[in-house]
């Protein structure tokens, strides 16, 4: 069966209060999100030729470090073009977040 869209809701499936960048810095980190949620779902979407839709609504907010580690990390692992082809993010709670995430994806390989 070919999936059109793989869904990932951060607030419902991961945490309402996203944490820091690395696991060592605290719980619900960007690193943990990448490893346990984002990467597996992205691979699922990639393999079935679908789009991974990440819904960022419902949390209290996101730190720069969390977003960069998760989405920048995804682009460092799979490449910017691949991520652009299979990823879609929405956040009606904070409209500027989408632009920021795409900036982190496109600048993923720059030294921070």
């Amino acid at each position, binding site marked *: 069966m070919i999936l059109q869209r793989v869904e990932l809701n951060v607030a419902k499936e991961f945490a309402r*209060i996203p944490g820091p*960048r690395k696991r060592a810095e605290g719980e619900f980190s960007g690193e943990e999100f990448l490893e346990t949620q984002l990467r597996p779902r992205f691979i699922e979407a990639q393999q079935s030729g679908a789009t991974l839709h990440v819904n960022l609504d419902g949390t209290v*907010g996101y*730190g720069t*470090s969390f977003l960069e580690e998760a989405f920048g990390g995804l682009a460092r692992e799979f490449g910017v073009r691949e991520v652009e082809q299979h990823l879609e993010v929405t956040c009606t709670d*904070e409209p*500027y977040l989408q632009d920021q995430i795409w900036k982190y994806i496109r600048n993923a390989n720059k030294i921070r």
Partner: protein
Amino acid sequence: VRWTFCVLLLLVGVLVGFILGLIVPGLRAVSWTPTLTLGDALHALAILLVGVVIDYVYASQTSSKQSDTKLLLDLVTDARTALHALEETSAVCKSGKKLAQEERADLLSAERDLSNAVHSIEEGLGHCSVKLHKLDFEKLKDARVKLKESLTDNPFPGPYDPLSLRTIRDGFTLMRNELTRMAFAINRR
């Protein structure tokens, strides 16, 4: 104010004409017999009508622009309030300790409020058909991103060292200055 100015202008015109009539001897010799034809009356009516239309258009445009400016400045004030709230919330960063989960949540939430307040200004400018590049709106957005990064990039969730605290302070100053600049730019557009 506009009508007072027009009446004043008329009075000054009459006064200047009267004085010129007294001073310049040649003018006293000129005789003038007033006549009024239907053509003259229609001509005067047409000029009056054009004047009224121009005044109406000018008045409606000015009034609409003034209301827009007031609404936009209110949005800037909202952003200033959100910035102030974020500054108060971020005071916990000075504790020298790692932020507790509740403090982290408050900080992220306050930062989101500021982000959305800036977004509202952008939306408002769009509704008023203001070209964003004319106001250098990107500079305000960049200042907001820099402030967010200073608060929630490394070393979030703390402890924040003196250098990080200085970056945060600079971020707030830049954001405050940008909001002030935006208020003046909106007022002078």
